[in-house]
């Protein structure tokens, strides 16, 4: 069981705590940009994602990569998550994964 390179589950607010670390999150695509996209996190924060994107993009994507700053991620993997997604569920997951149940995720 390899746990050597975990990606921390984050939302927009938690991203600032993991700058420079490998993170994973789900964002709603606001608009594609040159070299990436601008997205909205599950807690309504803007996140810029840089890197190679799948084509075509669905409404929601999962981003796994390194946090460049409190508002941007350099993506290693971007996966389409479809056009419907329970954002409140994921937001709660991020809070649990960084709170009481942190030991199960990192």
């Amino acid at each position, binding site marked *: *069981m*390899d*746990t050597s390179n*975990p*990606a921390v*589950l984050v939302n927009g607010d938690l991203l600032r705590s993991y700058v420079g670390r490998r993170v*994973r999150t789900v964002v709603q695509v606001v608009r594609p940009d040159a070299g990436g996209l601008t997205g909205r996190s599950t807690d309504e924060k803007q996140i810029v994602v840089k890197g190679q994107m799948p084509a075509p993009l669905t409404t929601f994507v*999962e981003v796994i990569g390194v946090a460049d700053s409190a508002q941007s991620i350099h993506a290693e*993997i971007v*996966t389409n*998550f*479809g056009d*419907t*997604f*329970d954002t409140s*569920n*994921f937001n*709660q*997951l991020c809070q*649990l*994964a960084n709170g009481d*149940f942190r*030991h*199960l*995720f*990192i």
Partner: protein
Amino acid sequence: MYGGEFDGAVAFSGGGFMPSQATQTTDPFPSALSKHRDKQTHSINREANQQSVLVGMVLNKAERVTDVSFVLDDGTGRIDCNRWVHEAVDTKEMEAILEGMYVRVHGQLKGFQGKKQLAVFGILCRRRVRTSFLLDKRKY
């Protein structure tokens, strides 16, 4: 077979595999597993593990004549998985599984040379991803 929702009746039809009452979503975190690494069958929470269900991303897929191996990353860690392919239907099922794809796998935890591994019985690609599988970890 690759529809949005996992249908247990469809997945398990055709014989050869029956869902066990002991099926549970597994937290592969080492602290939840037995410390007796030499035993072939691993235990979870001191109960003999009948089946495990994992959802994660497929990595490092390697296809061989008699089996297909891959690594499953569920967000908390990675575990080696192995799917024996005996018939053409098995091969065809595994051909549709691609690197980077999210899948749900059913299998049994095994130990091999001191390393944990999942012997996969069935695998389905997930077209819709839900976070409920990660929230289930609260049970452990």
